[in-house]
């Protein structure tokens, strides 16, 4: 096997080869960095790369492998991290000018766990500014291109993480998902991305966009790698009061389990506008899957039409609050001005991009006196109805299966001027986010014009294992 093929192996396979000393973690890094060298000029998936530090760590882990030590499966595995997750002493820009020079003095809990497992954080990946976007075109550091076709967007906002995994610039990556920001780019780039149950993975060190929705999750080339990374970062954290003290258990997927599962297709989702190609691939996948699962049936999520408006109210309201701390006083950008208020205004004006400003304004409006009950309050009530829809549906099925996105990847600049059309990319992913449910996007077997179509599998709370089982079954259909 030529070394350049390493990125196509699973983490488990790489681990065995490292253990057998077929190649070293340094060799692995050489391959990864050469891929990065080749693709970055076009793709723009990374904001910062920690080459020197990565090699130092690779050397140390290489030595450990040589002694025959029993190491974690992630030991020596390169991981790329979305640039809204804090890595100690490194830049955490959130793709924004206002934080273009901010270095975090601490590690996010997920990063701490990865480092403990011996994973090598190789760099920070590009994203929509403050994770707000569905196309990765709002980053201060420029758009990310889709490695499957650079004229197209990679999806957002974890577009950088999905893209670098897709072109082999990293074995795995962390992304963050608020309303589909892991699943949708995973779908557009033809990789696997998982949004865990809210509270499953600590948010400590994830720069907040919409706190009640944000989740850190893994992106990788295959379902097993995603399961493996998730098992390392999941768990209760003293630093995050919203994490749940619930045993993670084994997440190793087993495709044979799907014979016990009933899959539900929400009929309201099928009534939404969906690209013909996407609909066809989805239907074909369902047909193929039928032989393996116990049953596939139509279920109902009656509040589906409210998913997007409810999501955008809640996420903009929370964003307006979370982004209040970027005022130029303590770190990041500061525009000079004689008076305090003018300094705030100038810093925030220059520091934030258009989409971020739009959402701050929407959110501020939704929270302001006299409008709170009408907007945020109502959205909260609708949110509990949406949750109930899912609860009801899960009485009839074990998993819910949908397309990840109603569309195929679109061209750069195609939707950036039409925010409403852009927001529609999230129509299938926001529901599970509002309900706090785990969901995965995995590529369907058929390709369309060089692109994959992502299939989303939604599970019950803490049902990560089940969605991974089903995703693995779909992945196997590809073969």
């Amino acid at each position, binding site marked *: 096997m030529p070394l350049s093929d390493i990125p196509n192996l699973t983490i488990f396979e790489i681990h065995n080869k490292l253990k057998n000393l077929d190649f070293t973690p340094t060799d692995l890094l050489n391959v990864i960095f050469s891929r990065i060298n080749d693709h970055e000029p076009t793709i723009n998936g990374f904001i910062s790369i920690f080459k020197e530090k990565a090699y130092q760590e690779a050397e140390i882990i290489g030595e450990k492998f040589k002694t025959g030590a029993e190491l974690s499966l992630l030991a020596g595995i390169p991981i790329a991290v979305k640039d809204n997750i804090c890595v100690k002493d490194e830049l955490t820009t959130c793709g924004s000018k206002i934080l273009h020079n901010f270095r975090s003095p601490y590690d996010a809990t997920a990063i701490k766990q990865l480092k403990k497992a011996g994973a090598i954080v190789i760099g920070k990946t590009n994203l929509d500014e403050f994770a707000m976007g569905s196309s990765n075109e709002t980053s201060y550091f420029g758009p990310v291109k889709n490695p499957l076709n650079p004229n197209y967007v990679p999806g957002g906002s974890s577009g950088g993480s999905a893209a670098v995994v897709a072109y082999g610039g990293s074995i795995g990556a962390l992304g963050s998902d608020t309303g589909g920001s892991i699943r949708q780019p995973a779908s557009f780039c033809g990789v696997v991305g998982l949004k865990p149950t809210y509270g499953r993975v600590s948010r400590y060190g994830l720069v907040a966009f919409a706190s009640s929705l944000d989740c850190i999750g893994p992106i990788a080339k295959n379902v097993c790698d995603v399961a493996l990374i998730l098992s390392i970062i999941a768990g209760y954290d003293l630093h995050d009061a919203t994490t749940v003290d619930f045993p993670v258990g084994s997440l190793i997927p087993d495709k044979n389990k799907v014979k016990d599962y009933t899959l539900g297709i929400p009929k309201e989702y099928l009534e939404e506008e969906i690209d013909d190609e996407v609909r066809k691939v989805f239907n074909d996948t369902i047909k193929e899957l039928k032989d393996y699962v116990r049953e596939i049936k139509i279920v109902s999520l009656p509040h589906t039409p409210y998913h997007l408006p409810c999501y955008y109210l809640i996420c903009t*309201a929370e964003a307006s609050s979370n982004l209040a701390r970027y005022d130029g006083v303590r770190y990041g950008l500061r525009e000079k001005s004689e008076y*305090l208020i003018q300094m705030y205004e100038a810093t925030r004006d220059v520091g934030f991009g258009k989409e971020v400003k739009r959402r701050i304004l929407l959110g501020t409006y939704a929270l*302001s006196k006299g409008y709170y009950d009408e907007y945020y309050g109502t959205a909260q009530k609708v949110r509990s109805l949406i949750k109930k829809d899912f609860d009801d549906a899960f009485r009839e099925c074990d998993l819910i299966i949908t397309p990840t996105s109603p569309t195929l990847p679109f061209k750069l600049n195609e939707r950036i001027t039409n925010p409403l059309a852009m927001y529609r990319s999230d129509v299938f992913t926001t529901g599970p986010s509002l309900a706090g449910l785990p969901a995965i996007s995995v590529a369907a077997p058929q390709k369309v014009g060089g692109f994959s179509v992502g299939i989303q599998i939604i599970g019950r709370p803490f049902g990560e294992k089940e969605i991974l089982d089903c995703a693995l079954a779909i992945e196997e259909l590809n073969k």
Partner: protein
Amino acid sequence: MTEDRYEVVIGMEIHAQLKTKSKMFCACAVQFKDKPNSNVCPICLGLPGTLPTVNFEAVRLATRAALALNCQINPKSSFARKHYFYPDLPKGYQITQYKEPLAVNGFVEIDGKKIRIKRLHLEEDSGKLIHSGKESLVDFNRCGVPLIEIVTEPDINSSEEAVRYLEELKRILTYIDVSDCDMEKGHFRCEPNISLRKAGEEKLGTRTELKNLNSLRNVREGLEFEIARQTTILTRGEKIIQETLLWDEKTKTAQPMRSKEESEDYRYFPEPDLPPLVLSQTFIDEVRKEIPLLPQARRQLLISKYQLDKNLVEIITEDKKFADYFDDVVKYCSKAQLVANWLVTEVRGILNTRNIAITEFPISSDVLAELLVMLDKQEITSKAAKIIFEEMLNSKKRPREIAEEKGLLISFDEERLMTIIKETLKENPDVVEKYRKGKTTVLGFLIGEVLRKVQGRFLPQRVGELVKKFLDEDLR
């Protein structure tokens, strides 16, 4: 005259700093003496990605305060964000409790009147701005320190009552060891709102809020100023503007703080980073057991148990540690009245001149009791007792030891006393002469002279008797 026409209505918002070791939402120490920004971490600085977690010691103390103030504890309360931009507020919002406070519906009783407490909730403090020349610097050491906010109903009707309420509240909070309530250090901050209404009217008038009152004296003066100001305006038939006034201690006047942006929109919304605070009945019961006898009950107990004077009792119970000291002394010396007198005059005198707390007082309760027992048993005179007391402050010796050394134990050697009396009368022939001529008022002088000579070794009463007897007998 104006007092007849208008009724004063005052409501109070009090912020008291909780006596925790660490901050409300992170593990940083609560310490301000250290240099600026030394007790900070990514969490209290609100750095990107950080999250708050609740300090349960703060919850415990706040619950204790709420119970001591007769509040109802909400089994489920929740945190909210209150937004405003200011450099000492790192997150752009303060975490506080809004719609669901920790506790509601309490009261504090002063002079038989109940001042109702509307709510008591937990929140975090902000940092501090230091202005130097053209620059402003921020110190975040205070940022995230746990506070309780106590809000009353508009039940206070005079500046006098306001001060009484604050005194009692401070006393309760220090009794239960929840806050040090040091106003100068900012542990206890109050913001009264004041309005006037025509006597007999039900509707409240337009209110103003007073800020920057950092002593009880400022509270009194500030309220009096504002009541007078509002009275003048209303008497002229003009309208009060709703505004926040800053009290200036030097000029003894209050100036409006903001004019334009009076009605701020804090855009409150539930804090998504913190789940609701759920308190079990077991926890609440457990906290209830931590509450000691409160000042009011303690005063009543002292009055009924020892028949002490109300004013004396008030002084003794002013500070819990002082009252504890009293109780300890009484354990060894059962003459409560004597103990009370000594504590209020002698002991407090020393505390005041040395500016120390009772906990730093050098004489332990049992040793002081020993002295008072000697005094009570007439083994020493009260003059001798004071001499011994002075000595005890500076040495580790027991009172009896000092008394013996200095020869201060009461002597019953009347022969010796007679000699001294004779001597004294011989030294003051003109005074004796006056007495003989019927001017009996000089008796006091002669007794005083003898007492001076005997240095507290004889009972003054006996000295008096003997001097008189001697003079009278001699006359015959």
